[in-house]
């Protein structure tokens, strides 16, 4: 196990520091957060704790990326 892998493992175990919303609130606010972000507005200020949750929860992060990419793609 090298240092980089160890650091990744440690981050995965300890998760984000500071305030973090949980999965239900993340789902509730995901559409608002994504649209704020795509408009270049202060998404992290308007939805505090979202960014930390997306760092700590791989499942919610996947769904965030999918929604952002789906909404942002040209029709």
């Amino acid at each position, binding site marked *: *196990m*090298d*240092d980089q892998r*160890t*650091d990744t*493992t*440690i*981050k*995965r*175990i*300890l*998760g984000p*520091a*500071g305030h*973090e919303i*949980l*999965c*239900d609130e993340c*789902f509730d606010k*995901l*559409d*608002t957060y*994504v*649209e704020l972000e*795509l*408009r270049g507005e202060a998404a992290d200020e308007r939805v505090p704790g979202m960014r930390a949750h997306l760092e*700590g*929860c*791989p*499942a919610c992060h*996947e*769904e965030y990326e*999918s*929604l952002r*990419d*789906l*909404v*942002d793609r*040209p*029709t």
Partner: protein
Amino acid sequence: MYVHDVVMAGRPQPDAASCALLQGLRGEGAERDQALAELRDLLLKAARFEVRRRASAMPHLRGGDGEDLAQQSADDALMAILAKLDEFRGESRFTTWAYKFALLEAAVKLRRRAWQGREVPLKAEHWSQMAGRDFGPDLEAESGELMEAIQHAIDQDLTPHQREVLVALTLNGVPIDVLADRLATTRGALYKTLHDARRKLRKALAQQGLPIDTT
């Protein structure tokens, strides 16, 4: 083209397409039927989008499996949306709000499919085995000390349930929805357990004066 919402009084107003679709869904007869069909098409588009994104990492998703999964996800998302229609607050476009239900349904089904027939490692011994390895001479002493302290805190400070959930999700790579199924609980409840376990670990490490990220 991405259509920006009109921002009035600090709150985005629903765009015209959202208003029309919502009005149809709250209507009756043919108007509602048409709105339902339109919404179902949108949800299917989102579900297919998610299936396509994940398909390359899922070689066992054969033939029409992906399309079946997308259709089922669209149906389940439609039911969920109709049950929660009154919860739409207009803080985003209605289509964005609706898409997230289809993406969630598809993502959860895909994760479950990927783990179908696989053992879900729940035992904390997996952590002990991993952490008990010789980390090797190249590992910085600081990282080694932190890893040992984390292992000790996992063993000493967490409840058996917290240990099981933390090990399965963060070390054994079990998707949270798969673990929720196995433990007959919800994603939200499991993440709360993980969150509490992480807080306990951080507190234990801080009390020992160990260098942990606090940002």
